[in-house]
């Protein structure tokens, strides 16, 4: 049975109240930013999930409480995951309840935001976590109102909720007191991540992440840029990854090759191999230069030519560096400077 209510945008909390009052069982889909799903069982809220906050599985696996190899099969089994894990002895009942309850309130904060949104209700649908705890929709609503107010009390601007976050390069005061969760956040504010990214990355509750971020923003330690311009987003990793790897492998091979070349004098052979290894014209010519030098210097110590050879492959990634890679460098520099400053600040205490 399907109840379509996709027509116009309504405050999702009002719909939830109606469904709870009617004692419904099913899933309330809330569209919008970030949106999510509220699961009801006989009118009680039994689970809530949102892309903006980590769910039970993420909380348990990111923190290292459960290995992925335990969680994934349990989820795939089709049973109610929560009770199943408890029955198997992977979790205690207390942990399961705390984790689920935390996840419900956390996700509800994002799903049931006051802004009107399109909603639809799928009767009968249940969440795979299973029946762990029941929350009264009215209690949930009151608590969410309180939490929203709490955020605004800390720092009235909502910039940090959605914007890309970066740590301010200069601390506003000479002395700082930072808690462990705040430290974790500052270190991971790289100018590209948003509050949601941070919560999911660190396996921290979305709301508490927001609260800490607002505290940090109020203290002037982080700043947000509006969430547009995805320009430098995809640049980061691909060029970065192969280079150290290829470097290490290349230098190892180079050492081997240098000795072979020295012994057999088969420079031409090493040249072709170099060309094949790299599949890159420039690299091959550079490499072969090194190879020749290795042959020339063969009677001398074999360490030196090997070293010269080892250094050479690094120039190949150097060509790529002229391409799309500045953000990571900026990030490292920023982090290091910030970390140094915070450390000296802490030492001064």
């Amino acid at each position, binding site marked *: 049975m399907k109840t379509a209510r996709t027509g116009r945008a309504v405050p999702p909390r009002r719909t939830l109240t109606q469904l709870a009052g009617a004692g419904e069982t099913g899933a309330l889909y809330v569209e919008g930013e970030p949106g999510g799903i509220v699961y009801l069982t006989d009118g009680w809220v039994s689970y809530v999930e949102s892309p903006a906050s980590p769910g039970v599985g993420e*909380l348990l696996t990111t923190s290292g*409480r459960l290995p992925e190899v335990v969680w994934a099969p349990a989820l795939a089994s089709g049973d109610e995951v929560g009770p199943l894990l408890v029955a198997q002895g992977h*979790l*205690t009942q207390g*942990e399961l309840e705390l984790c689920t309850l935390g996840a419900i309130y956390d996700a509800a904060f994002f799903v049931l935001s006051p802004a009107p949104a399109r909603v639809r209700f799928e009767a009968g649908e249940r969440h795979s976590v299973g029946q762990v705890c029941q929350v009264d929709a009215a209690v949930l609503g009151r608590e969410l109102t309180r939490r929203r107010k709490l955020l605004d009390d800390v720092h009235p601007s909502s910039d940090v909720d959605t914007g890309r976050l970066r740590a301010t390069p200069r601390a506003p005061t000479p002395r700082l007191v930072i808690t462990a969760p705040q430290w974790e956040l500052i270190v991971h504010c790289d100018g590209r991540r948003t509050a949601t990214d941070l919560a999911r990355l660190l396996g921290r509750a979305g709301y508490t992440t927001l609260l800490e971020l607002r505290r940090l923003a109020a203290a002037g330690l982080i700043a947000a840029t509006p969430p547009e311009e995805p320009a430098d987003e995809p640049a980061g990793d691909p060029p970065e990854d192969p280079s150290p790897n290829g470097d290490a492998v290349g230098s190892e091979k180079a050492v081997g090759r240098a000795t072979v070349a020295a012994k057999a004098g088969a420079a031409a052979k090493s040249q072709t191999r170099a060309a094949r290894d790299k599949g890159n014209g420039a690299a091959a010519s550079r490499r072969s230069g090194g190879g020749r030098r290795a042959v020339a210097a063969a009677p001398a110590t074999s360490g030196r030519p090997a070293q010269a050879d080892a250094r050479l492959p690094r120039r190949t990634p150097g060509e790529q560096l002229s391409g799309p890679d500045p953000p990571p460098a900026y990030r490292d520099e920023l982090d290091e400077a910030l970390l140094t400053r915070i450390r000296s600040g802490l030492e001064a205490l």
Partner: protein
Amino acid sequence: MSGIDDCLTRAMAIHGAIGASLIDHTTGFAVGAVGRAPTDDPDATWAGTAEIVNVAVTGAPFASARPGDRVEDVIITTLDGYHLIQQVHTVFDSRLVLYLWLDRTQGNLAMARRQLRQLADGLSGAPAAPAAVPAARALAAVPVTSAGR
């Protein structure tokens, strides 16, 4: 072993207990509560408890006697009773405390504290806390630092 309700019921079974609750100390929200609260407004009690925990954990120097040290509980004694606030340490991210209001004449603070610690550990699935020895070491370190100043 024990769920939230079970844990609170057992907290209320501690001799001299008047009220017990499990509180999220980032938001001041009571995940569960049984018995009486010290004031007419339970919400205010919980918010106040959360504030105390946050002050102890973040602001004050109590948590930094040695690396890896942390606040385990906060005990407030009034003329009438004891207020015990035990941290619940879960591996996953949750920021909870177990709060117990104990009658001062009937309750036994030391016993109640131990029992509450056990309940908190049972709730979070933590193995018995390795608290005893490191705590003694931390105490031993205190005179040294105060002499240094």
